[in-house]
């Protein structure tokens, strides 16, 4: 298996810090795409702004690196314009759910067929370690020196409530699971969300005394559990991984095809 063909190697080395989880996401993503046998020409990857967003530049697809929080809005224009394209939208947690929160819930509500990857490192890395809406209460960040009092979102519950028809969570420790979930999300005909917990040892780890990348990956191993496991019953503070929502419901572009047919049959009946 050659995953190198998916990389724009002339643009390496990448900008991510040593120990960052985003490279693992990049690896999992291209392995999922490889396993699906998709042509590079049919994939459009749209990102916003932040550490996560740089993933698009390194990948040999049609890539669009947009504005902070707006990736899903750009992606919606691409998808509705050319529904045959496979649209994948990697975002950071602040990108997707703070500045981009409105676009996130509306893309989910429309159930437009694209795959949103939320690379959740619980911090604004590129700007130097400020807290995000996923940091959680009690955590420390460069803008929460006394401890964060902003509660966090549950991305899976939010996406499900907003109407996403495929919702999953995994981590950069569980790479095989990540590949499988991204694969299923891409195959899903509707708006799919995969939240990937991705370590930021440089800021989140350092600010919260969680150690380096290895310790943070171990934390993912020990503090997460498969959905519906007995471990969760024994320890409700564990974070669940797996597929939270998977349902068939009308997809936006398919519904628009019906509007096109309706409008065009009206056209043939009534000549202006």
């Amino acid at each position, binding site marked *: 298996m050659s995953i190198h063909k998916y990389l724009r190697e002339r643009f390496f080395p990448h900008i991510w810090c040593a120990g960052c989880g985003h490279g693992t996401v990049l690896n999992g993503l291209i392995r999922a795409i490889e396993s699906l046998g998709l042509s590079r020409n049919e994939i459009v990857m749209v990102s916003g702004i932040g550490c996560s967003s740089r993933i698009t*530049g390194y990948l040999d697809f*049609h890539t669009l690196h947009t504005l902070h929080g707006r990736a899903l*809005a750009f992606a*919606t224009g*691409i998808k509705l314009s050319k529904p045959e394209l496979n649209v994948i939208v990697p975002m950071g947690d602040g990108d997707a759910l703070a500045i981009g929160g409105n676009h996130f819930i509306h893309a989910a509500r429309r159930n437009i067929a694209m795959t949103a990857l939320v690379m959740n490192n619980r911090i604004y890395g590129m700007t130097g370690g400020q807290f995000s809406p996923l940091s959680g209460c009690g955590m420390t960040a460069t803008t929460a020196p006394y401890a964060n009092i902003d509660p966090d979102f549950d991305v899976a519950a939010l996406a499900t409530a907003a109407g996403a028809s495929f919702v999953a969570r995994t981590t950069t420790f569980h790479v095989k699971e990540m590949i499988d979930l991204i694969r299923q999300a891409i195959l899903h005909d509707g708006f799919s969300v995969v939240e990937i917990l991705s370590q930021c040892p440089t800021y989140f780890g350092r600010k919260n005394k969680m150690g380096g990348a290895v310790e943070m990956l171990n934390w993912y191993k020990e503090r997460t559990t498969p959905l519906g496991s007995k471990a969760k019953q024994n320890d409700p503070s564990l974070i669940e991984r797996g597929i939270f929502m998977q349902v068939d419901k009308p997809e936006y572009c398919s519904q628009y095809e019906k509007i*096109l047919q309706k409008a*065009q049959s*009206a056209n043939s009946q009534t000549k202006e």
Partner: protein
Amino acid sequence: MPGAVRFMQGNEACVEGALYAGLEFFAGYPITPSSEIAEQLSYRLPRQGGRFIQMEDEIASMCAIIGASLTGRKVLTATSGPGFSLMQEALGFAVMAEIPCVIVNVQRGGPSTGLPTHMSQGDVNQARWGTHGDHAIIALTASNHQDVFAITVEAFNMAETFRTPVVLLFDEVVGHMRERIILPQPGELALVERLRTSVPGGVDYHPYLPREDGRLPMSDFGGVHRYNVTGLYHDMWGFPSENPKVVHGLIRHLVDKIESNVDNIARYKAYYIDDARTVLVSYGASARSALHVVESARRKGQKFGLLELQTLWPFPHDIVGEAVGRAKRVIVVEMNMGHILHEVRKALTNPSNVFLVNRLDGVFITPTDIRQALRLIEGKGI
């Protein structure tokens, strides 16, 4: 064969012009006084296979049309003041990434929510400088429905020619007024189509390497060329770069491709200019009242003229200087506190001859308003 004679709103004339130009994709968000454009296109576009989407806000609308443009479609959004404010960030992205698109702003009274159903021309400088950073922009306007149609077609043509966003700055009076229009026949107005690269698949394609004539052939997303598009400074592959030479080259290119074509982009109408001693300079709905004043003055033998501007940005200083430089008096008629006034003054060697006649209360400026102001300027009292 002459085209169909119709009676419609200015907003509808804009829709007709956009469809004539080949519009295939619209994204928008409801806002007075532009909503009729979205309403009409939600009905018209799917009938001819085009696509319409109502987004969650104006930010998303502007982003969605940029995305659709990258797939090779001619795209439009329409809004008014507050919505235009929200679009500024993505408008700057379209400038930087050189994405052809057309943005209609049917101006209403501002700032803030202002006067949603009333007339203003207060967004002229926002169209020029609303997004951050040095850049160039094209902004066009028109005073009547026939011209709204034609200038809308021009907007699409310029967006493709210069790979840039083009702003159509209409106003509430033109947008909502109904009047007669003769719809041009297919082929009557020239159309500029997307310039696509002739580089075959497998050969290195440079999306941001201008040809000798300055144009940059595009490749549709989904096609054989996979490349990167970013709002960061970028090299000829579209990959982010902080190299000072690359940065300098790109900002010069973005500005020069428009500013050095100011004469090609300039659209205007000159009425009785040649021997005019008093020249009115106006645009949009205000130019209708200005023309009325000029024509009635001419009937009395007074040497009045009108320069009606249709291209506001890039401002055609040389053309304006040439057209009105010999006049004894230049009167700028606009419904704001003097956006174009300053440009006209810059264009003239004697700016003290340039006066502003305006109205700021949401009420459309009438010929009587202009005449009363002229009496004051001429020292004749009220």
